[in-house]
């Protein structure tokens, strides 16, 4: 009779076996290697690294394999692993102006110093299913441009900055050390550096929806894609015992500098303002959405009315993390017998009262 909650240990072990079998699928087919995932599903790997807050393609590929392609689950796996990693050092600020650019486009000027560089993008393809990919196919040879991309490639926004038409990008007075959201809880009001950290690891779907809402009248900011660039950036650290910078490698980044209108305020003349997006790997959708949301969250700082969801810090930042959100939404699967029993008793009492001719309410007033 009373068996519902017994046998948990055995049942759990069996569910693990079923999961492993389902992950592997038909064993007559070759097993995916991590190298294949890294090479051929690079954008999925990048997204897991972004939201997992850990730049490691091999581990991200492993997480994707273990999660059977479920991105949010893979992010969760990577985050839980990340918890156990010690901190050796903080890197020096990355210099994206020195990026070895593979793609750089601007939506604001027809031509820009260094030119529009399209790079490996799906933007100019027709989205027709390519049936030739259904079987092994030869890749056409790549023809590289005669002249390489100029290095460094000047930033488009510098042109506007030189004329004073766009706000200067200045660190806060004293250039304080940024908070570390992976070590300290998010507190409000959150400064811009903290907000950007949160947005950088935020769920792409959440950011995309919020960014889209700002384009449909909920916090309109009249954005232009000033510059989007993607490429490799060096990471360096300065160990205290050495006292000089050493290069520890390079990472692929996508950066978006959004230009937004600003009507001016009592203290500032009309000028363009900025929204900023940055993400690991090739991730333009994420970087652009992040830039729009960054700008909308600056409403208070810029003296704009902040009524829309995308302008409200607590709403945006508290709900952006898909590891938190996925866990809490799905915790409803856990047993709630005790609370439900309490509610059951209560609702029976309330119904009994409602059905009786003389409800006892007001009797105590």
């Amino acid at each position, binding site marked *: 009779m009373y068996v519902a909650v017994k046998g948990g*240990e055995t049942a*759990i072990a069996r569910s693990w076996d079923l999961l492993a079998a389902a992950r592997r699928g038909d064993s007559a087919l070759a097993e995916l290697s991590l190298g294949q995932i890294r090479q051929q599903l690079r954008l999925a790997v990048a997204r897991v690294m972004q939201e997992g807050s850990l730049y490691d393609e091999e581990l991200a590929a492993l997480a994707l394999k273990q999660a059977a392609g479920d991105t949010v689950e893979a992010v969760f796996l990577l985050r839980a692993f990340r918890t*156990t990693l010690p901190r050796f050092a903080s890197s020096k600020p990355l210099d994206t102006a020195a990026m070895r650019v593979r793609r750089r486009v601007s939506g604001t000027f027809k031509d820009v110093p260094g030119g529009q560089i399209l790079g490996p993008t799906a933007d100019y393809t027709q989205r027709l299913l390519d049936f030739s990919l259904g079987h092994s196919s030869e890749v056409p040879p790549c023809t590289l441009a005669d002249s390489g991309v100029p290095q460094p490639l000047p930033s488009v926004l510098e042109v506007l900055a030189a004329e004073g038409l766009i706000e200067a990008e200045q660190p806060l007075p004293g250039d304080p050390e940024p908070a570390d959201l992976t070590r300290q809880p998010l507190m409000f009001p959150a400064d811009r550096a903290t907000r950007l950290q949160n947005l950088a690891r935020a769920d792409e779907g959440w950011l995309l929806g919020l960014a889209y809402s700002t384009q449909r009248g909920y916090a309109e900011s009249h954005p232009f894609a000033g510059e989007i660039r993607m490429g490799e950036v060096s990471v360096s650290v300065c160990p205290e015992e050495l006292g000089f910078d050493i290069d520890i490698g390079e990472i692929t980044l996508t950066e978006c500098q959004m230009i937004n209108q600003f009507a001016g305020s009592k203290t500032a003349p009309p000028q363009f303002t900025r929204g900023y997006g940055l993400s690991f790997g090739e991730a333009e959708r994420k970087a652009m959405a992040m830039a729009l949301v960054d700008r909308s969250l600056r409403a208070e700082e810029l003296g704009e009315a902040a009524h829309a969801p995308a302008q409200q810090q607590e709403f945006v930042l508290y709900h952006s993390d898909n590891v938190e959100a996925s866990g809490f*939404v799905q915790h409803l699967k856990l047993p709630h017998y*005790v609370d439900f029993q*309490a509610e059951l008793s209560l609702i029976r009492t309330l119904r009994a009262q409602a059905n009786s001719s003389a409800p006892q*309410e007001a009797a105590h007033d």
Partner: protein
Amino acid sequence: MTEACHSQWQYNFAFLDENTKRMLRRALLKAVAIPGYQVPFGSREMPLPYGWGTGGIQLTASIIGQDDVLKVIDQGADDTTNAVNIRRFFARVTGVATTSSTAAASLIQSRHRIPETPLRSGQIMVFQVPEPEALRTLEASEVETRKLHAHQEYGLMHVKLYEDIARFGHIATSYDYPVMVNQRYLSSPSPIPKFDNPKLHMSPALLLFGAGREKRLYAIPPHTRVESLAFDDHPFSVQRWEQACALCGSHDSYLDEIITDDAGARMFVCSDTDYCQQQQEGKA
């Protein structure tokens, strides 16, 4: 440390690194010093999902030692799937002894219940908390609720309870029933049924509360006053059942209702499986 690790990867004892444990213990000391106050802490991602006990798991991980005996319950039962999973996690990363006996445990992690067997001095109880802010359903903004706590401004909650009485004739909150800790902080007892609230008052055991997703922890130190909110003319009361437990015959325990057939027949049994077992053995 690593000798105790039972996994292939070199996880530290109890998974968390020692610096993280120290951060957690410092926050716990603050929590004990200010009973009921929600201390923000740098919550980490754990290998179990947020909302499934990550706060409790972090607290347990930060205080568990080689000699501890751990009990993990969910809904009062040691055998519910998530309790099994958490217990297995700690067995795997610490190697400590586990038990289902409330009396034998030095450390008890729980979701939604306090055991029926009275806790004793020296025991530590860790609660998993989904929403540490007792005022959250009344005020969505964390900035605002922190202000309300700072000013001990709890009118919102009193009005809510009063409105219940005006509408239903009694307070219509059956679990996660708000408490005043040490006559200062309004706190969530976690979603335990209000049946368990009296066990918080003057408990000889240390009661720790961890909310991983919300990055808050708080504590009720031993022998602390804990009052369930009420009015003079509407005193606090707990759930009672007409039935006794169908398995052990107890009249004093919290009962779960179990539907036994398609016709809606039902039985009532103790939610605390260890207590029920003890009672059955006591009668045998």
